């Protein structure tokens, strides 16, 4: 089959120069629409990545959490029932370590009670974790220095936990402010043991940190796991295990593998991933996905209407020419191809330039050092724009929708009778 496409492409390219203003307007609609949606995709990608880092490494969730079924729903009501004992912890650790992606298995225990400075007291919720495990969980933040500062919610606190000094704890700065406690000050915590007895311990404020979230910043604390076990009177036990993986992308694979391994070993356990546990991540992601979809829909509509208008006008203006081309041997399909090629060129050039504009704006914004405080946050986060695969998806979807939009006038042009087209005034 002989190739007629070069001639049609040449005609299409020249066709774009006939009414330059109209072609420019359509090009700008495509280019600006694509650049806008790409920049927003890159921005939201950065938000997602920041929240991911915050959840996994900043809040020390790890990638996977292993616990007894029902723990997340009813654990606070009946903690003893859902506690893992020392044997179970070791079995889980041994099985989990067989998975190639697992880098760390850290026993955890959440405790709540009253924190007193000797004059007043208030409630606190503390995470008990082994200091060395906490340090390993936080190492992931170092991978992205630009985000680390804003997403290091436990920064300044967790690293002060000391396995040799069981009473040294880190408290959130809201809580510290409320209790007028500073680093080095002492206080006391009062809790109920698993058996319902009151238990207390002196503590020393080793560090103060910012949770980054206003709703948790006045009650959060980190404590060595050994202190929490002592307070709960739960020696060797944990309410869950946090697993750190080699890569976030391995989460689903590792989870599936571990679920099978635990089931095979007869262990009734449930596994939750970091994004299931981080409600902030889920809610923010859902919100931004909704906004992204809405904006993308608007951009698609604008682009489709621009292309239909541009090609529709071109078809009307060039009706006689279409008749001439048909008369001298261009098939109906060729006419369709001609006008879709024109639209295709506009879309390719528009998206191409739009991508270049995206990269330029991205470089400027990322270098500008802009930061802002998001809603319900207490720390500023940098405004950064990432590369995102949705930039490619957006270009492909725009191109497909644009071509489909061009098909409407193109097919109308192709199917009109030749003599009608030739007689068009």
């Amino acid at each position: 089959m002989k190739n007629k496409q070069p001639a049609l492409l040449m005609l299409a390219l020249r066709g774009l120069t006939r009414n330059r203003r109209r072609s420019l307007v359509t090009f700008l609609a495509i280019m600006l629409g694509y650049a806008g949606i790409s920049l927003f995709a890159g921005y939201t990608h950065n938000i997602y990545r920041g929240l991911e880092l915050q959840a996994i490494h900043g809040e020390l969730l790890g990638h996977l959490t292993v616990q007894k079924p029902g723990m997340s729903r009813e654990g606070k009501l009946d903690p003893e029932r859902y506690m893992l004992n020392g044997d179970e912890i070791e079995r889980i650790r041994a099985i989990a370590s067989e998975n190639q992606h697992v880098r760390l298995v850290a026993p955890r225990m959440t405790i709540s009670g009253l924190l007193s400075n000797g004059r007043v007291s208030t409630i606190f919720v503390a995470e008990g974790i082994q200091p060395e495990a906490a340090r390993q969980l936080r190492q992931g933040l170092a991978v992205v220095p630009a985000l680390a500062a804003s997403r290091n919610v436990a920064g300044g606190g967790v690293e002060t936990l000391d396995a040799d000094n069981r009473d040294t704890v880190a408290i959130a700065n809201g809580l510290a402010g409320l209790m007028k406690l500073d680093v080095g000050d002492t206080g006391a915590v009062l809790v109920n043991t698993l058996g319902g007895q009151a238990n207390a311990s002196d503590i020393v404020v080793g560090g103060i940190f910012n949770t980054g979230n206003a709703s948790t910043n006045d009650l959060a604390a980190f404590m060595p796991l050994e202190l929490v076990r002592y307070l709960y009177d739960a020696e060797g036990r944990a309410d869950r295990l946090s697993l750190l993986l080699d890569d976030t992308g391995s989460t689903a694979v590792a989870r599936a593998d571990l679920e099978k391994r635990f089931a095979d070993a007869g262990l009734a356990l449930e596994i939750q991933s970091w994004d299931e546990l981080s409600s902030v991540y889920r809610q923010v992601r859902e919100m931004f996905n909704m906004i992204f979809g809405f904006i993308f829909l608007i951009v698609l509509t604008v682009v489709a209407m621009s292309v239909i208008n541009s090609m529709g006008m071109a078809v009307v203006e060039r009706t006689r020419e279409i008749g001439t081309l048909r008369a001298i041997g261009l098939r109906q399909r060729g006419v369709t191809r001609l006008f879709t090629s024109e639209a295709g060129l506009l879309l390719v050039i528009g998206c191409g330039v739009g991508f270049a504009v995206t990269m330029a704006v991205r470089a400027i914004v990322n270098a500008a050092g802009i930061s802002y405080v998001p809603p319900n946050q207490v720390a500023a986060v940098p405004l950064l724009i990432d590369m995102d695969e949705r930039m490619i998806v957006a270009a492909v979807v725009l191109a497909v929708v644009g071509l489909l939009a061009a098909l409407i006038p193109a097919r109308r042009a192709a199917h009109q009778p030749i003599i009608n087209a030739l007689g068009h005034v």
Partner: protein
Amino acid sequence: MTAATLPLSPVHADQKNAYLLGVEGLSPVEPLVQLTNIHRRFDLGKTQVTALNGVSMDVAPGEFLAVWGPSGSGKSTLMNVLGLIDLPDKGRILFDGTKTLRLEDDELTDFRAQRIGVVFQGFNLVPVLSAVENVMLPLQLRGAPHEEAQDAARKLLREVGLAKFESSRPDQLSGGQRQRVAIARALVVEPQLVIADEPTANLDSENSRMVVDLMREMNRVHSVTFVFTTHDARLLDQVDRKILLRDGEIEKDEVMA
């Protein structure tokens, strides 16, 4: 000038004259196009207009034929039917032995692309293409390589006297020059038939004469059949044959001696 004085090649001239004049002792060639009982009507609002009413005619290979008559006589419709651009409501078209009304649209388009050149009253050149690109276009639409199409187009532009204007766009050419480009475009595919609907209607008398002379020369040099329409009787002195059309019917079919 009459048909008898045309410098045709001996075989070509003899065959055509045998066909046209019915000379005994010579075997006439088959007609290139046979129209039989062609009817074509158009709806104009609530009324129907009969453009062709039972037209039957043959066109011989190599013929230089004019269809003339007053406005509204059906000349353009006859050209469109001959050029397979329009289909009749009724009748039969045999083009070089092919029953063209049985062809699907794509087949008809390819048939046209290979065998028929078209010259329009309004030139109908693509305004964003240069003269040589306009002439190349029919070949490129058939999938010819760029160089091959360019060589053929340049050769024809030389023949029609526009070698110096090959890079000029249509809006940089005079009416006569544009029509010469259009003739070159019609000839570039080496068609069997060129139809030209009122090719001189938008030209002054000098350019009209020049265009008809050029078509006649191309008819002679390339042995291509030309059928053109005109309402100007002064341009009929070079034709082999002229058909007077009136109210959609052939009133007179004259072979020029």
